[in-house]
């Protein structure tokens, strides 16, 4: 695979086809964990890590286990199990090795299991027929795209707390409208290509 191919996958995953704002994957943590900048950043890094690992493991499991035995129809079940096990493992590892990071992430770590973006990246890798390197790049850059979106959104939302808006829009609805405006801004990247 050429360098430009990898670069265009990376650029696509971060900007053009951003996981949250264009593909609508991982909206729950995007809205739930974006009230403060610090937690948003922590969640973003945890997601980059897990999405990268999930891409690696799901590719290996699919290519070496499911395809040789013609079990592709089990992909959904197997992928979610791989991801759940992975998150559990990462949690135990962080608890022993880096307790400070574990403390900072807290409840958000186990919640990554039900993040659509993680299962989504594994399924999309298979759907697009990416090879190992492409899958890993797509997973990690997809996570970076997620982090950029959630950090941007958290910084806007911190100010939104003090904004004067109609009573019915307070809280969740105004956050959704704001996210929509950020999605509108990201539409400006569509058509961006690496030659």
């Amino acid at each position, binding site marked *: 695979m050429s360098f430009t191919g990898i670069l265009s996958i990376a650029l696509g995953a971060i900007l053009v086809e951003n996981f949250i704002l264009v593909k*609508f*994957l991982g*909206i729950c943590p995007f809205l739930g964990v974006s009230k403060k900048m610090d937690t948003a950043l922590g969640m973003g890094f945890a997601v980059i890590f897990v999405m990268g690992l999930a891409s690696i493991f799901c590719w290996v499991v699919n290519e070496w286990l499911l395809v040789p035995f013609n079990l592709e*129809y089990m992909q*959904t079940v197997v992928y979610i*199990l791989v991801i759940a096990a992975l998150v559990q493992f990462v949690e135990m590892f962080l608890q022993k090795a880096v307790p400070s990071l574990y403390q900072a992430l807290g409840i958000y770590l186990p919640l990554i299991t039900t993040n659509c973006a993680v299962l989504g990246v594994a399924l999309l890798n298979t759907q697009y027929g990416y090879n190992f390197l492409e899958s890993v790049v797509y997973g990690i850059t997809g996570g970076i795209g997620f982090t950029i979106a959630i950090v941007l959104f958290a910084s806007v939302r911190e100010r939104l707390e003090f904004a004067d808006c109609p009573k019915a*829009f307070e809280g*969740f609805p105004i956050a*959704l409208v704001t996210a*929509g405006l950020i999605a509108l801004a990201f539409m400006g990247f569509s058509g961006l290509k690496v030659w």
Partner: protein
Amino acid sequence: MNIGKQFKEGLITQNPVLVQMLGMCSTMAITTTLFNGIGMGLSVLAILTCSNIVIAALRKIIPQKIRIAAFIVVIAGFVTMVDLLIQAFVPALVNSLGVFIPLIVVNCIILGRAEAFASKNTVLASAVDGIMQGFGYTVVLIIICVIREFLGSGTFGGGILNGGLGIRIIPEGYPALLLVLPFGGFLTLGCLIALVQHFMSRSASKEKKNEEVAE
């Protein structure tokens, strides 16, 4: 067991999307035509009901510590079944929903109901809960689909009526294409939730009606 109460909870007071704010990804991503909305809604309804029944039946066998993993396996099994059925009988839906059919596994509504309701109640009550919550989800999806399709592409019933093209209401060139794009998903859902909050606060405190908010 009180079917009337569960019906009201599923549709309005505990609506999975508008009040509990669960299952946001699919709600915003696929609601561009009526066909998508109905297909997605019915798939979730079927999976939610089946998984609720099985989880309620197994609630005394599943150990407390690994219950989430066990729930996910049950749900993933039903999602795979529905996915294969859709591929066999409604292939058009596979093209328009794409990766969002397998992603029903991580739809928070299903895991949420399994944890909050099915793991504590009888099989029959859980089945009714699954149908009502799934129905509430489907109704919201259809409402969002109709709004976005009408304003964004100017048609009604896309994918089903008039040979899949839908009935054209607004002439071509006039609809705001923006509403079928991701921005429209966020905006429509935000306005819909604001509307619900408005009516809930109004019915609670009998406040004066505010015309602008409804817009």
